[in-house]
């Protein structure tokens, strides 16, 4: 028989709601998601919670637990102070659908705007060979489970919703970095990283890294290296001088995927 804990759960929809207290049993070794399931089964059958794998690999059960963006399935009950209520709220950055479930489609819109992997067309399928050292940087970024905790915690859009159109967020700037570091990729996304995806809005305060459940060093290994690449492209006075006197030609960078940024009023228009 476990002990009773107080769960203070945000309940509501369309942005309107309130924190409601529930007394729920919690057993040794359980995680927040276990207790939420017990709450659904015993007291609040209509409580909306998104979840899937319960193993920290699908990224579905992202929520804010005592104000910290975390995965409900990876947060043990034992980390909380006994007797203290545990507050559960939806991700603050995304529109709420109901209770703890938010609409994260913002992220899929951003994903579509990034030019995909662009290999040399002269290299045939199956012909390209690369060594482990060439891909290990990108492999770290491939650990991403798309829980969007980094997107949620980033103050650039969390506290300033007006930046949503201009800023892709750490997850997708990391995607840009991943492609830029790929040994077989031929596109140049440095201009759009700054101009279209808002890398300059990032002030590297590392909250994305702090909340990443996969422990990806988003800031140090993706965002800052990308900022340095952009600085070399756009803000290095010697590079600029070299391009002016013809010593370093400056070919045009790759554009964002057409029709996805809402410039032509297409279906990719930003929502939320």
């Amino acid at each position, binding site marked *: 028989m476990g002990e009773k804990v107080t769960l203070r759960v945000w309940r509501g929809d369309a942005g309107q709601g309130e924190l409601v207290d529930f007394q729920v049993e919690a057993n040794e070794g359980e995680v927040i998601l276990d207790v939420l399931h017990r709450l659904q089964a015993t007291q609040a059958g209509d409580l909306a919670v998104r979840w899937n794998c319960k193993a920290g690999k699908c990224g579905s059960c992202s929520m804010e637990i005592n104000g910290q963006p975390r995965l409900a399935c990876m947060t043990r009950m034992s980390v909380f102070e006994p007797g203290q209520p545990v507050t559960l709220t939806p991700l603050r950055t995304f529109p709420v659908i109901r209770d703890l479930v938010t609409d994260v489609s913002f992220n899929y819109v951003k994903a579509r705007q990034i030019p995909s992997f662009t290999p040399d067309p002269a290299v045939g399928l199956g012909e390209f060979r690369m060594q482990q050292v060439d891909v290990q940087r990108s492999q770290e970024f491939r650990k991403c489970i798309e829980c969007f905790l980094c997107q949620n*915690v980033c103050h650039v859009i969390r506290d300033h919703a007006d930046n949503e159109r201009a800023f892709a967020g750490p997850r997708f700037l990391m995607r840009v970095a991943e492609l830029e570091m790929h040994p077989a990729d031929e596109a140049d996304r440095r201009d759009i990283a700054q101009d279209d995806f808002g890398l300059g809005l990032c002030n590297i305060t590392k909250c994305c890294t702090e909340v990443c459940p996969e422990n990806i060093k988003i800031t140090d290994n993706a965002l800052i290296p990308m900022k*340095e690449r952009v600085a070399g492209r756009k803000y290095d006075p010697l590079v600029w001088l070299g391009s002016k006197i013809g010593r370093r030609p400056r070919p045009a960078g790759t554009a964002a995927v057409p029709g996805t940024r809402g410039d032509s009023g297409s279906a990719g228009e930003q929502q939320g």
Partner: protein
Amino acid sequence: MTQVTAAPARTRAQIAERTLRKDPWWRVPAVTATLLTIWVAYATVRVFMGHWYYVPQYHYLTPFYSPCINGECVPGSASLGTWLPALPPIIPYALVSLPFILGFRLSCYYYRRAYYRSFWQAPTACAVREPHATYSGETRFPLIMQNLHRYFFWITVAVSVLNTYDLIQAFHGKTGGVGLGLGTLIMLVNVVLLWGYTLGCHSCRHITGGRLKNFSKHPVRYWAWTRVSWLNARHMQFAWTTLGTLMLTDLYIALLAAGVFSDPRIFN
């Protein structure tokens, strides 16, 4: 006829509290702001003090006065010669290095995080609502100048070479020849850590190999990149310890120069 239910309004959850965090999230930015303020106050006083920066018996020169280029510099302290006439210390004696070292630290990716959080509160802590109504990040002047970090890095490498020269000079014995004192060891630790901080810089990481797509085609640069990456992973620790060792080195030399105590000598 099927009745279509209207989609719910696309609105974020309206939660009035600035944060629901229960941990002491304010502690780290408060400590950071306090320590940085203390350090800046100390450094400002020392840089404009104009004395107690050189110990002629052992050739100890504080890093805050290296290179000493003012005509007022005491004999032996001006390793690069005096480039300026005798001016009051309202103009720092190390005028040619201090602005660039300051620029290097101000544009450092670690310190940016530290002061954006602790002073500018953008944000104060993760998942804590910041107090600003608008935000433009590093897209406009003056913060767009942070992109020049790599130039400050190169100049700081030159200053670190100079600090290394000052360290070699500090192996000077009381009666001439080679000597070793506590001050030499303090300067040694300071210079080693300064190199660790400088070479662990994110711009250095980019320059050595980070900008490459194919590490396998550049094995030497890849090796250098792995070494710099090791230092880079500890950049925050180097950033703080070098602030401490700079202050300690300067204070030790100042107290020696003021005659408060004498340098314990290991030999000569």
